[in-house]
């Protein structure tokens, strides 16, 4: 678990300028939203994962960590999963229920990135 905490700390470190209570001046819809309500084409930044610690640690390991930028590509019909691309270079399908537990904000809150790794 010590390492899970290390990852957690890392995640928080990455999102030091994108804390769990994001700055209010970003008035767009993504500022204080859930991943589940993000529209296709929208690019957002993960702020907080509302899951028990072991599940959150697994999600971070997969690539859904605090500070990660994700772009929603599409939603499966009838409330199915959401297809998204991570700024770290992977694409994922995330179930709608889980996406409701992921708080996202505007990626502008992050420091400028030096380039894509994808």
């Amino acid at each position, binding site marked *: *678990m010590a*390492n*899970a905490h*290390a*990852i957690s700390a*890392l995640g928080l*470190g*990455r999102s030091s300028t994108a804390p769990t209570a994001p700055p209010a001046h970003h008035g767009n819809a993504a500022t204080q939203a859930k991943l589940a309500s993000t529209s296709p084409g929208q690019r957002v930044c993960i702020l907080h994962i509302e*899951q028990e610690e*072991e*599940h959150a*640690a*697994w*999600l*971070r*390991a*997969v*690539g*859904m*960590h605090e*500070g*990660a930028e994700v772009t929603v*590509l*599409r939603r*499966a*019909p*009838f*409330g*199915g*999963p959401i*297809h998204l691309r*991570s*700024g*770290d*270079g*992977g*694409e*994922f*399908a*995330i*179930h709608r*229920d*889980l996406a409701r537990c992921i708080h996202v904000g505007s990626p502008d809150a992050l420091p400028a*990135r*030096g*380039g*894509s*790794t*994808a």
Partner: protein
Amino acid sequence: MSAAPSEAEAAWAPAPTPPPAQPASQPAVAHVALIGRPNSGKSSLYNLLTGGDAKVGNFPGVTVDILEASLSLGDGAVALVADLPGLYSIDAVIDPATDEGIARGFLDGVSARAEPLLVAQVIDATQLALGLRLTRELVARRLPLLVVVTQKDVLEREGRTLDTRKLEAAIGAPVVLVSSRAPESRAVVVEAFTHALAHPRTSATPEWDASRLAREVLSDAVQVSTEATRRRTFTARADAVLLHSFLGPFLFLALMAVVFAAVFLVADPVTAFFDGTVGKLRGLCERTLGASLLTSFLTDGVIAGAGTVLAYVPQIAILTLAMEVLDASGYLARGAFLLDRLLRVLGLSGRSFLPLLMGHACAIPAIASTRIIRDPRERLTTILVVPLMTCSARLPTYALILTTFFASRGAWFKAGVFIALYFAGMLSGLVASLVLRRTATKGRSLPLLLEMPSYRMPEWKVVLRKGWQSAARFVRDVGRTIVVVAAILWALLKVPAPEMLQTAPASAPPIEHSIAAAIGHRLEPITRPLGFDWRIDVGLIGSFGAREVMVGTLGVIFGIENAGDDVSPLSKKIRDAKLPNGAQAYSPRTGLALLAFFVLACQCMSTIAAIRKETKTWRWPIFVLAYTYGIAYVLAFVVYQLGGLFHLS
């Protein structure tokens, strides 16, 4: 496939024994554990290093197959290379049965035995930041580490460079950049293994951030190369069609239909060829040895059992190949994406769809294919319900029952019943999964996240080898159980029981004197409420091993030769069968009850052996036997009794 037999021989050769005179500096054979995220190119690298040779390693406490092969190192020593399952983390272990838990168990086991170990982490260069998250965990555990970054060719084509020196300095472990598909990469990796094993390095606490480090060491494309654009737009364009809300599911179903057609078009002739060969072998055996109990044991027991094994091989090979192609191309994850919502209602996810669909052809490859399901509880649930799907082996029995008991009904009625039987199989599977997820397999699951890899051209050598290996493993592991059960069933059906020699008339067919007949008579009071007499019970005993044997066994009981070729004489005999008091033995009620029984009961020792092999315990195969026979009995009882209420006689 021509080279396959020699590879298989190598694959199943005994474990290479360590060289007898080890240098004092190397007391034991070193382990190299290949570790990496799913789709990181780990299998390609393993294939490049070992030429695909693989045996299932024997690792204490590890409950899944971990492939292992020996590799000659540059300094003349030999290392055992183990291909661990693809995983995201070794710290975030939600359940010991997940791939993450298995890998951690393996690493802990090797460390506990103090054997020399090198962890070779494979990272896809195009997902460097994601791979480095796992590197952080490995570094923090102070494991002797080598990082193998693959997809060098892709980086080159995109005009990008990886600063391996800078990466090495940051993580404190050696780094090599290779292309798993280029043969010359093998020497580079073997050299790196040799050096890393001779000079093990464990680094300090990682004080770097994965995403930031990836950006620092990997240059952006100098210019947006046409190759990079083409690769990305291809996946995006393909997804626009294949994941389209309406078009996507139709294309998926069409593709599945093609796979099924291939199973029946390609596998059936091969199966028929095997059948013919086995038939000739039986004939040869009978002519050479003459009629005796031993000949009967060899032909009707051992060779017939081996024939059952061979009959499944073509289906297993084709379904495994199809699944490997779908998985390696990246499409399998898309199918799971499309169907996830539907299966979520039933406590399963999109990944369960393919095994459940394959179960409609044959449960054995379907059970093996559940390895694609990452969540261990969901995987177990799928394994437990796959035997309820209407596999192709049920069809001859359904046909016999329909012809026998509903001879006067029209073709539409029979077609309707056939379709209803298919739906009954699916419905029972879905109800069973709902119940199991709340009882036997309840518990914590992995979060509902699925990686969607880019579309890639499958490596045909890898795909063909996997198809061959799964067929070879089936023959070796499952085949043994089948032949043993076939031999036991032969004894039950052929060896006379003393009590039957006294009670049954001497002129009766030998099967009426058998141990199976004695058991059938004993079972009769239990099966009477289902409308089954001792003859049907004997048929059910005979078909315990393989349900399609029901037709042949009933043929023997009713004295019809080759009942499998044409069921109409047997149907007539069954229709006309009388009870000792002269009353009609069977009615359409019996037929319906039998159909209900066949829909649910897991009358397939191959399936049982496959479940044993996948779950590594006898607990779950016994559970499947108990629950499927239990509900089969109850449903057959309900159907027969309801039939009586509606005067179906």
